[in-house]
């Protein structure tokens, strides 16, 4: 029984419809290999970010616990202090600058979408279904991640949960795809050399030899670009995105060229002129809540209530620590305040104790965070009262905020109301 007519319908299903002389197994293998390296790093740093939120502690979990991969809960160190700035900066920046490579890879295999007959065997049917998971998954992960970094939510589902489960679909489909295609990739590299076709000039550029998979055009047009040239165009697109993006994470002179980065702006020279993730107005923090009546409640074996003046009278320490956002931007500032471990001792607890931090913010996500004992014990972990020598601004968490080395920015709770040390 034949499911499909032997003759393909007109249009892209006909051989010879796609005419680029550059498409072929070697080109796709090279683009795929490069993309694979990028996707490996983006996946690893994404999973590390999940771990950095320490979803096993307190109410930290955003993705429902129990419906999760518990072996990801590896704990999170405080050394080096720029660890999360590095991993998350890599996740977001590499994800953004890999867009041209993803587009080029998909361009190189588009004839396969219109293969005729659409299904030739059960194996091929399964493979095509897994490719929907792979291509849909890749585009879904890129699209949701990129719009999230620009705080634009055109969808109705929750970003974190969807991006997390989407990642598992994408990663598993990618693994099987690489395994299935490994023989094709090895053959292409063996027959044509890994980089040798990049030496050909435009005049020397010929289509790859016929391949049964239908990537090579049966009616190739005259080339307008060498393979080296194509890689160069992809490289130029990547470099362009890097220049307008990376400054929000790397800082330095690149901050000036981060012209399209969502958080690349230089706001001014004041001590509090650096990026904010949630303003006091948004969190509904009023001057009355942070004024003379403000008391920090420190709980442990005993409960202590401290005014801001009393906090300032405790031993003060200054640390240069980055604040690194899950959206990819980061900035290092000089924070001054009381060590968390000193406050633990004040509450009659050992310096190394789990800590639950609550904010004055009364409603909304991420107004609390639980830290593990190692993070509390670290000498550089502060309840910051000042930044760069000045009082914290309301948007940066006045009267007091947590700052812990290598901790994701949203867990460095602002407008701290309670510190609850738990044995």
């Amino acid at each position, binding site marked *: 029984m034949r499911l499909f007519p032997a003759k393909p319908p007109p249009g892209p299903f006909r051989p010879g419809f796609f005419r680029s002389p550059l498409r072929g197994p070697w080109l796709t293998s090279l683009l795929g290999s490069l993309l694979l390296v990028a996707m490996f790093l983006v996946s690893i740093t994404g999973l590390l970010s999940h771990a950095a939120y320490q979803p096993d502690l307190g109410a930290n979990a955003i993705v429902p616990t129990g419906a999760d991969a518990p072996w990801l809960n590896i704990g999170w160190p405080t050394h080096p202090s720029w660890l999360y700035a590095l991993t998350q900066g890599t996740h977001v920046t590499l994800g953004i600058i890999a867009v041209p490579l993803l587009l080029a890879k998909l361009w190189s295999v*588009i004839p396969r979408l219109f293969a005729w007959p659409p299904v030739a*065997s059960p*194996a091929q049917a399964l493979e095509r279904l897994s490719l929907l998971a792979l291509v849909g998954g890749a585009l879904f992960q890129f699209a949701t991640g990129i719009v999230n970094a620009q705080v634009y939510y055109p969808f109705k589902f929750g970003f974190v949960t969807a991006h997390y489960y989407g990642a598992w679909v994408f990663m598993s489909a990618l693994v099987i795809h690489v395994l299935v295609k490994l023989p094709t990739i090895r053959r292409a590299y063996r027959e044509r050399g890994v980089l040798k076709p990049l030496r050909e000039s435009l005049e020397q550029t010929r289509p790859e030899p016929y391949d049964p998979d239908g990537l090579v055009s049966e009616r190739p047009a005259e080339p307008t*670009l060498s393979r080296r040239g194509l890689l160069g165009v992809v490289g130029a697109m990547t470099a362009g995105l890097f220049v307008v993006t990376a400054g929000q994470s790397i800082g330095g002179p690149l901050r000036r060229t981060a012209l399209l980065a969502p958080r690349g702006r230089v706001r001014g020279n004041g001590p509090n002129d650096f990026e904010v993730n949630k303003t006091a*107005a948004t969190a509904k923090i009023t001057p009355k809540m942070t004024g003379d009546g403000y008391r920090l409640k420190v709980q442990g074996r005993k409960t202590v209530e401290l005014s801001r003046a009393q906090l300032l009278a405790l031993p003060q320490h200054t640390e240069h620590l980055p604040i690194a956002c899950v959206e990819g931007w980061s900035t290092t500032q000089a924070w001054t305040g009381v060590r968390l471990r000193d406050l633990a001792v004040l509450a009659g607890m050992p310096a190394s104790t789990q800590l639950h931090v609550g904010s004055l913010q009364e409603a909304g996500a991420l107004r609390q965070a639980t830290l593990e004992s190692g993070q509390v014990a670290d000498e550089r972990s502060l309840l910051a009262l000042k930044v760069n020598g000045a009082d914290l601004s309301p948007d940066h968490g006045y009267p007091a905020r947590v700052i812990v080395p290598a901790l994701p920015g949203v867990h460095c709770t602002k407008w701290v109301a309670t510190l609850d040390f738990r044995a």
Partner: protein
Amino acid sequence: MSRIRERYGASPLHLLGHLVVFAITLWAISHVFDGREPWNFVVWFVAAALLHDLLLLPFYSVLDRVAQALPGPRSAVNFVRVPALMSGVMLLVYFPRILDRAPGNYTRVSGFDPEGYMRNWLLITAALFMASALLYVGRSAAARRRSR
């Protein structure tokens, strides 16, 4: 073994591997179904693939054909392609800020209005095309001098 290969079209390992992928996919989707708007998740998943394969790719392919059909020397087309692609991919990635989508969200989190993205993108685009044009003129002049 060979009968499976004949009927199925590949080795049993191929089948096993794909079944693992579908199990993970179903696991992921079932958990997303515990959350908000599960169908919206599935729609976006499939729509992402369709939008790219049936809209974006044909769109830029047609644009490329148009560029190739423009009068002028054949070698000129890459001097249009490169700046157009560089500018185009920036628009694709940063359209929410360039086209000022949901500016209220941005202001609520950052405390600032998201200003200047459209202007920056237009300036970058103009600079890219200008640089490309200068490069083209320079190269053509050098080629003419050589041929004389």
